[in-house]
């Protein structure tokens, strides 16, 4: 395969992923806002564009499978089919399979379309009449009288018709308007493709094929603008096509054929009167057809004149696109229906940027800030006026660059939240629990890496909520709660962090049970009170799960420790609030960005380390503070509170004597304050984080490295990993369970 073709494929995969997302969202919305015309059109268009795009890069199987989905959507759109949960489920499953096909193709191991789904989709088409009998959701605000009973909606493959030309198949309109005669209208189309259409990968032959599907087509190429041979650019299109098309399809169908060409090509479509005169349809097609009167298909009087052509027309297989719209015509057509064929207007122009390059840019901008800081420090020494000005502007510019590039990494958390309505719907389906999902603050922006990696932990929590926390409808009613359980996802700022909450109004955590289990596992001392604040955080410990049974949805032997680890890896924390009988809320607190941290530079045993400021609650001097042993762990009294202490020197196995005046960094670990002793505090730094690379991933205590102003490398300490590590070291003979990630790496 040529590299150009590869490139088109790549572009297709990216586009397909986006379209699949809109398709999914569209389907989910469809269930809620049944009759919304504009919305239906948008959903349909996602399927249609995907089909077109797949066909264009030669992925026939994908195009064909998409066609099945598109056909069903088209029926819904035409009002020939009602929407119910079953149809949506089928479409969603088909979408999932389609997504799998696309990904498999991208991984060069294509999978075939699912025959089962193809049949089910076809089955939906076949059963269309059933649901069409009830008033269908087609165009909402139309004054059109509802489909009158005597002219029932006729579905695609039933050549049931009432009036004149008995031989022709007539399969449109759910409206009682005078039945449009089925005779083909002739259109004269002039197409001057933009010079770049070939480079954009548009297959003109494919477009002509689509036209032929609509009806009999005559193609004439005008070679007038083809330059002499030596001037020809083989990638440029020079031909002007004039096309005559005889079709009974509504003009919108013709529109759709040219959908992908419309943006840079000159296209004019005119209707040929029966007398052979051209009735122009106006300027560029895609805009022109909207306000147009429906092509009145030559009035009755002219029928005779056009009759002979009828015989030539190839039968149209696809059902009409805009039945009500096209027939009712005129002003009654709702305005929102029009955008159907106009390419989606995008609120902001977006470009795709390679994530790696972006990271590099962020890194560079951060370094620029560091360099500037160094120069600023020089200024102090020299004190030269012109330098000062230059440096100040350098500082301003570099900070702006940094802020802008950092901003590029930020995406609204909606990109994460938008997949959950689907997840919740599926869970609700399977569990028999009614769930009302609320989403708040989806416009909050977060680092894209965080948004990408938070998906699995959140799915985990949502599954837990549905599986364990929310009660069945009857139980809820008995408790005086509303039938349906509620799950609320919210995002918002809390200081310089972003808090994401996953909240349910279910039964709440059973503290008694947690304590019993904790004692049984040796994680908490005997006789611990259920009200002890440490109790709740036990659920995040590895190996802790109060459920013994494994269900399909959660509890597959994976505990909340995985959630906690995932959030920690993002330099965030997770906490839980729970009120028995009222519900539980899990709160992730995350940094705004991963690329840059505010840190504290500390020294221990001759090494300099950066500690993320966000992990430090307080610093206290250890001078004169006596340490004591409590429960076999060294502790210090900080303002009367006994705080367990971890010595970084001990952890690093450093030789030598610690300075008399050590400093204690107070951090919070598993709901408890813990102190980490370091030799010296050197000051605050802003650090651009670099990964330590593949080979060092096993070292949890360092979350990365950064380059200091003097060019030396400093490691970034992860205090919570340091604390867990030391707890493991000190309590080694205790439970096997607290071993955690450290133990895993021993295997």
């Amino acid at each position, binding site marked *: 395969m040529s590299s150009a073709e590869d490139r088109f494929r790549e572009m297709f995969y990216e586009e397909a992923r986006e379209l699949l997302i809109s398709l999914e969202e569209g389907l989910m919305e469809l269930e809620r806002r049944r009759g919304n015309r504009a919305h239906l059109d948008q959903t349909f268009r996602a399927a249609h564009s995907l089909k077109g795009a797949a066909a264009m890069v030669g992925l026939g199987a994908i195009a064909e499978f998409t066609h099945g989905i598109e056909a069903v959507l088209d029926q819904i759109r035409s009002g020939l089919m009602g929407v119910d949960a079953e149809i949506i489920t089928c479409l969603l499953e088909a979408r999932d399979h389609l997504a799998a096909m696309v990904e498999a193709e991208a991984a060069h191991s294509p999978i075939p379309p699912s025959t089962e789904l193809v049949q089910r989709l076809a089955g939906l088409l076949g059963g269309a009449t059933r649901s069409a009998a009830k008033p269908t959701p087609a165009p909402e605000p139309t004054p059109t009288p509802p489909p009158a009973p005597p002219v029932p909606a006729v579905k695609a493959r039933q050549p049931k018709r009432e009036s004149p030309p008995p031989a022709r198949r007539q399969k449109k309109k759910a409206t009682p308007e005078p039945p449009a005669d089925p005779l083909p209208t002739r259109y004269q189309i002039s197409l001057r493709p933009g010079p770049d259409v070939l480079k954009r990968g548009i297959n003109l032959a494919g477009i002509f094929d689509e036209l032929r599907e609509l009806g009999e087509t005559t193609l004439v190429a005008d070679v007038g603008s083809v330059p002499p041979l030596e001037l020809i650019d083989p990638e440029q299109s020079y031909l002007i096509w004039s096309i005559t098309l005889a079709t009974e399809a509504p003009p919108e169908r013709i529109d759709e054929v040219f959908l992908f060409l419309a943006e840079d090509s000159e296209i004019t479509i005119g209707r040929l009167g029966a007398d052979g005169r051209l009735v122009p349809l106006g300027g560029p097609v895609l805009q022109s057809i909207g306000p147009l009167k429906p092509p009145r298909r030559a009035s009755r009087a002219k029928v005779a004149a056009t009759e002979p052509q009828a015989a030539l027309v190839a039968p149209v297989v696809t059902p009409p696109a805009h039945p009500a719209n096209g027939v009712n015509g005129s002003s009654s057509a709702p305005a929102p229906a029009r955008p159907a064929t106009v390419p989606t207007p995008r609120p902001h122009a977006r470009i795709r940027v390679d994530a790696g390059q972006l990271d590099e840019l962020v890194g560079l901008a951060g370094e620029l800030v560091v360099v500037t800081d160094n120069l600023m420090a020089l200024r102090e020494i020299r004190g030269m006026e012109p330098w000062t000005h230059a440096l100040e502007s350098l500082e301003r510019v570099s900070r702006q660059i940094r802020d802008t590039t950092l901003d590029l990494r930020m995406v609204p958390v909606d990109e994460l939240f938008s997949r959950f309505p689907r997840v919740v719907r599926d869970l609700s389906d399977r569990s028999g629990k009614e769930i009302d999902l609320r989403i708040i603050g989806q416009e909050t922006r977060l680092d894209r890496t965080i948004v990408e990696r938070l998906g699995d932990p959140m799915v985990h929590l949502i599954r837990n909520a549905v599986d364990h926390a929310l009660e069945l409808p009857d139980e809820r009613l008995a408790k005086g709660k509303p039938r349906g359980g509620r799950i609320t996802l919210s995002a918002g700022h809390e200081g310089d962090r972003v808090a994401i909450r996953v909240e349910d109004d279910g039964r709440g955590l059973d503290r008694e049970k947690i304590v019993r289990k904790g004692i049984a596992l040796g994680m908490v001392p005997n006789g611990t009170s259920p009200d002890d604040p440490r109790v709740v955080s036990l659920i995040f410990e590895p190996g802790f799960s109060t459920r013994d049974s494994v269900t399909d949805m959660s509890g597959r032997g994976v505990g909340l420790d995985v959630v906690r680890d995932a959030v920690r890896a993002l330099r965030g924390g997770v906490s839980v609030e729970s009120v028995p009988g009222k519900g539980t809320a899990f709160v992730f607190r995350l940094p705004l960005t991963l690329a840059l941290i505010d840190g504290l530079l500390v020294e221990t045993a001759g090494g300099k380390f950066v500690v993320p400021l966000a992990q430090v609650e307080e610093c206290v001097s250890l001078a004169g503070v006596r340490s004591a042993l409590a429960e076999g762990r060294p502790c210090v009294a900080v303002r009367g509170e006994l705080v367990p202490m971890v010595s970084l020197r001990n952890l690093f196995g*450093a030789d030598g004597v610690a300075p008399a005046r050590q400093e204690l960094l107070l951090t919070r670990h598993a709901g408890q304050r813990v102190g980490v002793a370091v030799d010296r505090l050197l000051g605050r730094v802003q650090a651009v984080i670099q990964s330590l690379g593949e080979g060092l991933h096993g070292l949890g205590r360092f979350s990365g490295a950064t380059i200091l102003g003097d060019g030396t490398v*400093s490691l970034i300490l992860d205090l919570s990993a340091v604390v867990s590590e030391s707890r493991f070291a000190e309590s080694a003979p205790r439970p096997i369970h607290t071993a955690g990630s450290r133990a895993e790496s021993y295997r």
Partner: protein
Amino acid sequence: MVDLITDTSLDVTDQDRAQSYVVFRLGGEGYALEVMRVQEVLDMRSMTEVPGGPKYLLGVINLRGHVVPVYDLRTPFGLVKDQNPSRAPCVLIVESSVGSDAQITGLLVDRVSDVLEIPPDEIQPSPRLGLGKATPFVRGLIRHQDAFLLVLDVDRIFSTLGSLNGEGA
């Protein structure tokens, strides 16, 4: 057009053309590494130690703004450290690929001695046994001045070290 033809003919010969190898010494053994893999050779400089890191990890350095780990292969290869080195060791900056990721790593070596051009047919397959702990990391042998140079497979070295990491060797 003419250029095109010469180009392709060059391509053909390219396959059996001699490749250049950087020859270096480590713990008394001679090793060779494709020159294409070696970005540069640095003098030993100050390094940031990684407390608790594996023994073969000497530390991390700042290579023009990038944090690069430096490994000492003597530990995994079971070689002894030269107690009285005649000169300061240096660091080879090597490109390797683990999975689909390219990464830059430093390798401590006692001395870089030479760059040799070796035709592919002079590289003998590596024996399955007999090279000690380094055996799995040797791609082949080059006979050079009455001794064998061990051609290293850096990709394999780094992917293996990566997975050994947790053992804190």
